[in-house]
């Protein structure tokens, strides 16, 4: 378990919505770079380094594809590089494409981290309060998936032992596939009715029943949530004062370097690197304690 994952699910949800929202909202290249580095650094802390770098090799072609193809769809900009079918291919359109590519890759990495941190139990816990019935449906469906896969394997083994559809021909395999699927559906429907009867017998839906959950909102969560919200609000104020404004068309604007802009960038840098710093600090502590043993 990573340290950042131990924060209360509501803190994590606010954080991820905040950073993914910021990344998708902005077209400012500096901010996109910060966001990408934050997400990539966090991903490296969460996963095996080799896996993360391998995924990066997958995103690089996507990044270049988007930046190269954007000029084909957009002819704005004042710096033509060359003409294709009498249409200008502009530097601005290409760099705009690069910014979009960077944005998409950053969002992908944030979502990757989200998938590792926000496990389904946290998701159900958060939404269980707002939509209790649907959360139960979702949590049952999540549980049914491995159960059904296990059942499919059972049925398939039995069928093979009985010697039904055991040849290697494709027709046989497809037919046995449908037969197994059909048996699985029958079984799962009966299983469902049994479960429902059991739920009724145990008094599901009666008033006065309480829920168990492992998550407690502690002081530590409160501090983290306040820090995240304070940084988000500061960044939002900066954005509303226009210090983050950046446009590619008709010509690329400059990145502002007023004191206010610098404060806003530092705010965002802090916000986007929180998980990375939390994990690095935890690793440092861990190695320090290990060295003491």
């Amino acid at each position, binding site marked *: 378990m990573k340290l950042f994952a131990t924060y209360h699910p509501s803190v994590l949800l606010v954080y991820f919505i905040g950073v993914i929202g910021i990344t*998708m909202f902005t*077209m400012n290249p500096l901010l996109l770079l910060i966001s990408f580095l934050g997400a990539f650094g966090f991903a490296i802390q969460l996963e095996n380094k080799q896996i993360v770098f391998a995924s990066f090799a997958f995103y690089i072609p996507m990044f270049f594809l988007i930046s190269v193809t954007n000029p084909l769809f957009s002819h704005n900009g004042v710096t033509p590089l060359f003409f294709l079918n009498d249409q200008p291919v502009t530097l601005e359109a290409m760099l705009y494409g690069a910014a979009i590519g960077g944005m*998409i890759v950053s969002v992908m990495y944030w979502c*990757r981290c989200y998938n590792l941190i926000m496990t389904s139990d946290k998701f159900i816990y958060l939404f269980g309060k707002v939509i209790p019935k649907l959360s139960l449906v979702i949590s*049952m*469906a999540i549980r049914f998936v491995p159960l059904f896969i296990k059942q499919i394997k059972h049925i398939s083994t039995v069928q093979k032992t009985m010697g039904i559809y055991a040849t290697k021909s494709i027709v046989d395999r497809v037919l046995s596939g449908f037969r197994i699927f059909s048996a699985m559906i029958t079984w799962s429907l009966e299983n469902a009715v049994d479960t429902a009867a059991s739920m009724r017998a145990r008094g599901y*839906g009666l008033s006065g029943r309480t829920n168990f959950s492992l998550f407690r909102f502690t002081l530590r969560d409160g501090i983290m949530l306040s820090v995240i919200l304070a940084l988000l609000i500061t960044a939002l104020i900066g954005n509303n004062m226009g210090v983050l404004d950046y446009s590619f068309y008709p010509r690329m604007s400059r990145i502002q370097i007023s004191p206010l802009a610098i404060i806003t960038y530092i705010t965002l840098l802090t916000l986007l690197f929180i998980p990375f710093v939390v994990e690095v600090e935890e690793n440092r502590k861990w190695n320090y304690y290990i060295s003491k043993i």
Partner: protein
Amino acid sequence: MVHNIEPYLEHKKDREGKVFGYLIILVAIPLIIAIGVSLFNDRKYNLISILIAFLSCIPFFLSFEKRNPKPTEMILIAVMTAISVVGRFIFAPIPGFKPVTAITVITAIYFGPQAGFLTGSLSAVVSNILFGQGPWTPFQMFVWGFLGFIAGLLAKNGWLEKKWQLAIYGIIAGVAFSLMMDIWTVLSMDGNFNLLRYQAAVLSSLPFMAVYAVSNVIFLLVLTKPIGKKLERVKKKYGLN
């Protein structure tokens, strides 16, 4: 085709709630889109579209919460969702070939539009817990839910009973799914709607569109009758009604 499983899932009290639900769907969604278009008159449609897609699902969710569904009903939706997710999982090696739409449509035929919407949108949520969530999740939630909802409405009015009607709906659903997901592709890249890029996206996703349509038709034709029979059988065996 059997339609009499539906009554035990629908209670008289819910009528008002349902009318309210339809109103939200038919009035609120266009309103949200209109607000999005007029207020955010810049290039932030990627964010707005996710918001709209997500908000569009909320009336369905809330009307389900409010009418206090029975445990049997909740579990049947969970089972149908899990079946479509397992199907997507089994057929994952063949890109685009997935039974999610077909299972959603079948659920909608037997349990009504609301159950259809829920199965479709929850299939998106649950299968993306396994396949990875992304900004496209709300879009898939809405598109699959919408396809289930429409199928439920059609089935209520006596459509989708014959095989050719199912096949046509399967084709339309496959094309619609592809066209609507292409809208997301364009919005996520451009921030606003670039017609030229949309044409390119549609063109490059034509093979997928074909696979979606073909797989929908196959799954609908093969699965609708057997699953209907099974539902009937379970109902008889356990004396549900």
